[in-house]
């Protein structure tokens, strides 16, 4: 390779000459984008890394960064096994190429779990090649060589840097099997490593899809049906087309797009559109949803049974005591701070796209189908995402940009306003749960029933959730109503509210049984261990461990004057999180003073980032439990910006304390698992403070204002 080459050329070259091993990638195609220094002569070792003679190690991080810290965590794992000097590591977002990287999506907190071993092998294999190259050079056995911080050392005192060895090492045949480090030898994993994009974020570099710009690019905003259940009848764009900066107004898929020379001009012109919408499906109100949810729970006849252990009916007949409650939550928008947007440039036989997507592979396939192109003619550049929370698992906004570009035959960026974003659907579904538990004279749970009713959630239960496995007679069933209101995954899908309902109900059961809430769960876990009933999908010991740890750290059982504690524990997305909320009464109002969390996500990759995720998830869980509410009138979302929709703010957050179990088990994700337990811990503590059970979210709608 030549020394002087453009970044694009370099990337093309390495993709072609590096045995197809490295695929670099640039979306910094605008002059406004910061130049990224690519070291000349860098040598590809495998799909994940290359090393330059200067010693700079480039690590490609394949998964979309949404704020979960994956762009830092993945390279840490590679660098650990490589024994790289982190100061000399530069991280690049890899292109979408699932042949090379398999799972390139952000969802289900699954990236670390999926890629842990692959990433370690990528680093360890390259390290092996460097050691072999040094041993060959020195004519010594490789076993006499060690590595540290970017150097290979020999027992004789000889030492060569990775950069000095890169040329020869890259030619070594990679081993088929490679020995990985013992956990005790980790020196980077488990430390606090700062986000690799920090500097670009903190100096305002254009990192996000919203910031994407190309020469000659047009801007568009799109008017979509204002109510769920409506479609486009006709429109008149005469006035809009007269407005400054407007290039075109086109319609497709029940939408009207205004294309222009700037975002602001298109936003203004959209207001001048005269559009007639017509009803296509029933226009629903929130009161309809409340009624439908309740009706579904009145009958088991049409419910789908997901799990049935023992004989629930008989057990309830012989119950000493029955506890029964219903819990309900509303629809929620995701409200990622960066509204939806996407860039697309249709070129006839191909399309170039760029933007924020949690599922770029799905977007690629769907765009290919939509425009009748082969998938490899659809390129998608992955931009950093200003949050996602599940919204960007849906590809609607990317497809829209692709379709628009194919119509106007020009490069265009579609921007959603906040109103578009909040009123645009793909909400967390509204759900209502009914729980019923039978207790014997000793306060043991003899039967347990859960019926989940939902609007567009499919199955709103998780049938194998604890306490399933610990109860002889158990029935889990669901009912679902199909609504025109579009729904989708929202951070910790289903469990973001189911956890709250389950954990609050268990608190009620403990009270009825005259047992301490933690003790009740421990007894159930003991039972599941000694005489399991049916399938058990959770690890009993890990469940116990986080519960004990949080109890110890929060001083559970020790009386603190004026302070009430509420407990909650949840197994979510392969990680275990227990939380205890401290609530006090200030001027007659409950105040969440503190939340203590114990987290078992196995090995902690990056302590700083892991803590940040847990803190954020607790704040998110509290904020949405308190305030989150999306209501409808004649199919129209009633909240469409922050004047009507309240997100938690700086002045509302409690003190938070996080403890990791860090048990050396292979790591699992942390983007979602710390959110589900929060609502339950808080509601249980509020009950102890006020004597009032909170059955519905948002709490604020039940005249429970926090002081």
């Amino acid at each position, binding site marked *: 390779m030549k020394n002087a080459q453009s970044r694009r050329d370099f990337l093309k070259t390495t993709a072609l000459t590096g045995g197809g091993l490295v695929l670099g990638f640039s979306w910094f195609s605008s002059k406004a984008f910061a130049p990224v220094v690519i070291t000349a002569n860098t040598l590809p070792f495998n799909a994940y890394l290359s090393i330059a003679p200067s010693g700079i190690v480039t690590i490609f991080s394949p998964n979309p960064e949404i*704020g979960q810290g994956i762009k830092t965590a993945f390279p840490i794992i590679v660098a650990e096994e490589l024994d790289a000097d982190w100061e000399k590591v530069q991280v690049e977002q890899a292109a979408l190429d699932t042949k090379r990287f398999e799972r390139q999506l952000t969802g289900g907190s699954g990236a670390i779990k999926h890629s842990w071993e692959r990433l370690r092998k990528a680093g360890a294999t390259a390290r092996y090649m460097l050691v072999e190259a040094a041993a060959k050079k020195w004519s010594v056995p490789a076993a006499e060589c060690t590595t540290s911080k970017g150097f290979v050392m020999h027992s004789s005192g000889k030492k060569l840097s990775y950069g000095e060895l890169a040329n020869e090492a890259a030619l070594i045949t990679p081993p088929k099997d490679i020995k990985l480090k013992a956990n005790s030898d980790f020196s980077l994993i488990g430390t606090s490593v700062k986000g690799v994009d920090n500097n670009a974020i*903190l100096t305002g570099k254009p990192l996000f899809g919203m910031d994407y710009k190309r020469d000659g690019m047009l801007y568009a905003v799109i008017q979509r049906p204002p109510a769920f259940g409506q479609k486009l009848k006709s429109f008149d764009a005469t006035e809009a087309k007269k407005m400054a900066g407007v290039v075109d107004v086109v319609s497709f898929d029940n939408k009207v797009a205004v294309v222009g020379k700037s975002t602001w001009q298109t936003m203004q012109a959209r207001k001048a559109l005269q559009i007639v919408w017509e009803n296509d499906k029933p226009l629903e109100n929130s009161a309809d949803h409340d009624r439908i949810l309740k009706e579904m729970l009145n009958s088991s006849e049409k419910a789908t049974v997901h799990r049935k252990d023992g004989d629930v009916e008989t057990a309830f007949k012989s119950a000493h005591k029955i506890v029964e409650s219903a819990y309900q939550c509303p629809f929620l928008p995701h409200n990622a701070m960066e509204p939806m947007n996407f860039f697309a440039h249709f070129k006839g036989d191909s399309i170039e796209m760029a933007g924020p997507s949690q599922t770029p592979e799905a977007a690629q396939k769907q765009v290919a189908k939509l425009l009748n192109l082969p998938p490899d003619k659809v390129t998608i550049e992955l931009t*950093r995402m*200003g949050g996602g929370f599940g919204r960007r698992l849906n590809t609607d906004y990317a497809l829209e940009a692709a379709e628009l570009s194919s119509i106007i035959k020009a490069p265009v960026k579609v921007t959603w306003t906040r109103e578009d974003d909040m009123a645009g659907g793909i909400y967390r579904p509204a759900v209502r749960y009914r729980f019923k538990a039978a207790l014997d004279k000793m306060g043991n749970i003899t039967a347990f029933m859960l019926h989940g009713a939902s609007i567009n959630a499919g199955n709103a239960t998780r049938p194998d959730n604890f306490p399933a496995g610990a109860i002889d007679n158990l029935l889990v069933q669901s009912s679902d109503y199909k609504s025109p209101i579009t729904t989708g995954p929202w951070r910790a899908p289903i469990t973001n509210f189911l956890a709250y309902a389950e954990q609050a109900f268990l608190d009620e059961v403990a009270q009825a049984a005259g047992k301490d809430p933690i003790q009740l769960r421990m007894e159930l876990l003991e039972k599941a261990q000694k005489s399991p009933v049916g399938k058990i999908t959770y690890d009993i010991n890990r469940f116990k461990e986080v519960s004990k740890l949080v109890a110890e750290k929060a001083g559970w059982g020790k009386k603190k004057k004026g302070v009430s504690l509420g407990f909650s524990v949840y197994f979510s997305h392969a990680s275990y999180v227990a939380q205890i909320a401290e609530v006090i009464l200030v001027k007659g109002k409950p105040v969440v003073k503190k939340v203590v969390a114990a987290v078992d996500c196995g090995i902690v990759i990056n302590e700083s980032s892991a803590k940040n995720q847990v803190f954020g998830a607790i704040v998110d869980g509290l904020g949405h439990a308190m305030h989150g509410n999306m209501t409808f009138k004649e199919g129209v979302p009633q909240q469409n910006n922050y004047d009507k929709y309240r997100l938690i703010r700086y002045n509302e957050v409690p003190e938070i304390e996080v403890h990791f179990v860090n048990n050396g088990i292979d790591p699992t994700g942390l983007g979602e698992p710390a959110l589900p337990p929060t609502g339950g811990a808080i509601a249980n503590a509020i009950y102890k403070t006020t004597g009032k059970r909170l059955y519905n979210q948002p709490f604020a709608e039940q005249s429970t204002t926090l002081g």
Partner: protein
Amino acid sequence: MAVISLKINGKSYQTDVDANTPLLWVLRDHLDLAGTKYGCGMAMCGACMVHINGEATRSCVLPVSAVENAAITTIEGLSATGNHPVQQAWNEIDVPQCGYCQSGQMMSAAALLAKNSNPSDKDIEAAMTGNICRCGTYHRIHDAVKLAATKMKK
């Protein structure tokens, strides 16, 4: 349309836009200063925070014609290399998750600290409550403001 002269981060710019265009969109679309973010367009979230003559001001509802003679500072002008004490503190505390709101957060913090080098928790709360962080990094924002204050004293 009108030719508007602006002074941003100590540099002079001229741009031909509708006088009513909010400063935010002039920065982002016309001047390639995309560090200032669009979040809500109604001065509720603080993602678009800039300094106008040193005052933290939301740029999404501010007509560009209103700031023609003002000294405008954006995140790019806080320090291009990231060595403003607020940027340093934000990095040391490792504040960002997604990072989208953080330029607005930092502009609020920098305006506070320029006037009050020793802010109390109440002062910080008053200055930062106007900025939403959907990722919930508020605790780190608090710690970073405190750290930036100690850095500015040195």
